């Protein structure tokens, strides 16, 4: 792994850290993600049960970015091999940084290279068969100024099935890379909630490689946070693979959320689907950069990309850059990026039935987000996410 780290560092030095003038960072300023000094982020104290609390799961806890064995469950589960990154077995060592490096073409992702070069903490998971319960990564935060890097490596073996949950405030500044290698007929489900501390910054990358008839489904909820840049880079390398990526984000005030996605279709009859929803108010900013690349020969590709923003006032803004690049002739791709306001007709209809203005607006906001939440397959987990979105709105209402 030391060799991989060294090569990542060399790659990073060659590409340099992201700059404001970089095209890929046009809408999101990288400054806060790359400064030497880490500004503190005040810890948000919330008086509610933690997310996923009622879900039967294997808990793995990191405190300020360091694995906490005492707080974590025993890392054994039938058909699943779990270890810390520092104890990574050979297969994981040889995968370390590989998908990240693949994902550097054609667009450079320096923060991911930085992560591969520097990260020492993370989890390594290999799953055979269907995991009996989700693996839940919980990111506890105790320090005001924690600057955390985590690098996870996941290998879903042939026909295996794994769900990963991620949540918790994590750090004042967080940089994560998750490399996910899915073998033929494997299924990977991922549901995460970004930290809710108002001043926290995060840059995350998921690099996925999908085999024959495999499935990748990822959903992210973001409420609060000063700066979030979530990149998902997938390569569909086997025929009949399915990739779904969804996100529901709500921001109020000093909030920027950026979803950057790059999906490469390099095989026959694959389906990819992106559903991103953002609700923005009081000057919050949303960014979406999504690209579907269909390589020559990737016939019968079905690519769908939808990014919608709901602006609750005139101070908030959304920048969308949906892109398609297609080199095969028998494909079906649709993409769209829209920005809108609350539907006045629907508001009046609800109010005319006695629903207060604030409550009517919240109902419409939740309805707007629901197309993204609906992408979560597990109904109980989806309901947990819905209740958090409702709670966030309700706290702002009273």
């Amino acid at each position, binding site marked *: 792994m030391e060799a991989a780290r060294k090569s990542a560092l060399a790659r990073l030095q060659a590409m340099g850290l992201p700059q404001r003038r970089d095209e890929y960072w046009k809408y999101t300023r990288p400054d806060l993600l790359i400064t030497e000094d880490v500004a503190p982020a005040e810890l948000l104290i919330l008086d509610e049960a933690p997310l996923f609390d009622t879900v039967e799961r294997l808990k793995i806890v990191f405190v300020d970015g360091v694995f906490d064995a005492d707080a974590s469950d025993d890392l054994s589960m039938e058909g699943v091999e779990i270890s810390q990154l520092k104890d990574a077995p050979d297969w994981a060592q040889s995968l370390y940084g590989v998908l990240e490096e693949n994902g550097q073409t054609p667009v450079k992702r320096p923060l991911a290279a930085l992560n591969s070069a520097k990260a020492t903490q993370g989890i390594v998971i290999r799953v055979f068969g269907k995991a009996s319960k989700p693996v839940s990564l919980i990111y506890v935060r105790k320090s005001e100024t924690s600057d955390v890097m985590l690098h996870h490596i996941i290998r879903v073996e042939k026909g295996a099935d794994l769900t990963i949950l991620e949540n918790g405030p994590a750090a004042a500044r967080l940089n994560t890379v998750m490399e996910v290698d899915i073998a033929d007929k494997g299924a990977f489900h991922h549901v995460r909630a970004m930290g809710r501390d108002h001043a926290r910054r995060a840059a995350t990358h998921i690099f996925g490689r999908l085999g024959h008839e495999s499935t990748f489904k990822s959903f992210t909820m973001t409420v609060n946070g000063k700066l979030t840049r979530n990149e998902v880079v997938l390569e569909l390398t086997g025929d009949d693979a399915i990739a779904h990526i969804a996100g529901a984000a709500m921001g109020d005030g000093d909030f920027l959320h950026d979803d950057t996605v790059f999906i490469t279709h390099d095989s026959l009859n694959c389906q990819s689907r992106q559903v991103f929803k953002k609700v923005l108010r009081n000057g919050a900013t949303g960014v979406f950069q999504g690209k579907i690349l269909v390589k020559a020969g990737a016939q019968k590709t079905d690519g769908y990309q939808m990014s919608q923003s709901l602006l609750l006032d005139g101070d908030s803004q959304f920048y969308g850059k949906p892109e398609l690049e297609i080199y095969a002739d028998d494909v079906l791709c649709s993409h769209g990026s829209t920005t809108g306001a609350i*539907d*006045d*007709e*629907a508001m*009046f*209809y*609800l*109010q*005319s*039935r*006695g*629903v*207060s*203005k604030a*409550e*009517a607006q919240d*109902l*419409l906001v*939740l*309805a*707007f987000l*629901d*197309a993204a939440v609906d992408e979560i397959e597990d109904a109980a987990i989806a309901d947990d996410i819905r209740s958090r979105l409702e709670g966030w709105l309700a706290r702002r209402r009273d």
Partner: protein
Amino acid sequence: MGPNGSGKSTLSYVLSGRAGYEVTQGSATLLGQDLLDMEPEERAALGLFLAFQYPVEIPGVGNMTFLRTAVNSQRKARGEDELSAGEFLKDIRAKAKSLKIDAEMLKRPVNVGFSGGEKKRNEILQMAMLEPKMCILDETDSGLDVDAMKLVAEGVNALRSEGRSFLVITHYQRLLDHIKPDVVHIMADGRIIKSGGPELAIEVENNGYADLLAEVA
């Protein structure tokens, strides 16, 4: 009743508090309270209900969630206890059944994909659940088949009582065979130009509005 564009829907919207209108003259009160000063939801809680000529589709909001929120918001505004999930369910099932609205339709998003007639029946279901004091039905009969019209009329007649009023806007005398009006008003160009008994509707049905309009010209 009144010709197209005479202001019937406009009057209903103004009374229920839709944005975009300025009332320059006159007043509107319900149970002694000034309606024009209130938000739409306050008017609703006081007892005003409008069955929309064109019911609004709301993707993503379940019909049941919507109705339960509406019923409980009004109860809360009036200082009453909220209905429990069980009580609400029992009530809505019975009322939906009498309007031949099946349970599956209650789960769907509000009015999304409903047929014209289903939307109108859904309006009447809402009215039945909310038990308002003053009901305005804006062309609820248009788009309904003969049987559905009977169901809707029965729904209205079942609610007719002391202390509850209906303003039924329609173009067709046919509806009035099922819902017997006490008074018929004719509106033209934003004004009531003539009022009378049920026979006035029959006159319109037979002769149209030309004579009535000529009378006031």
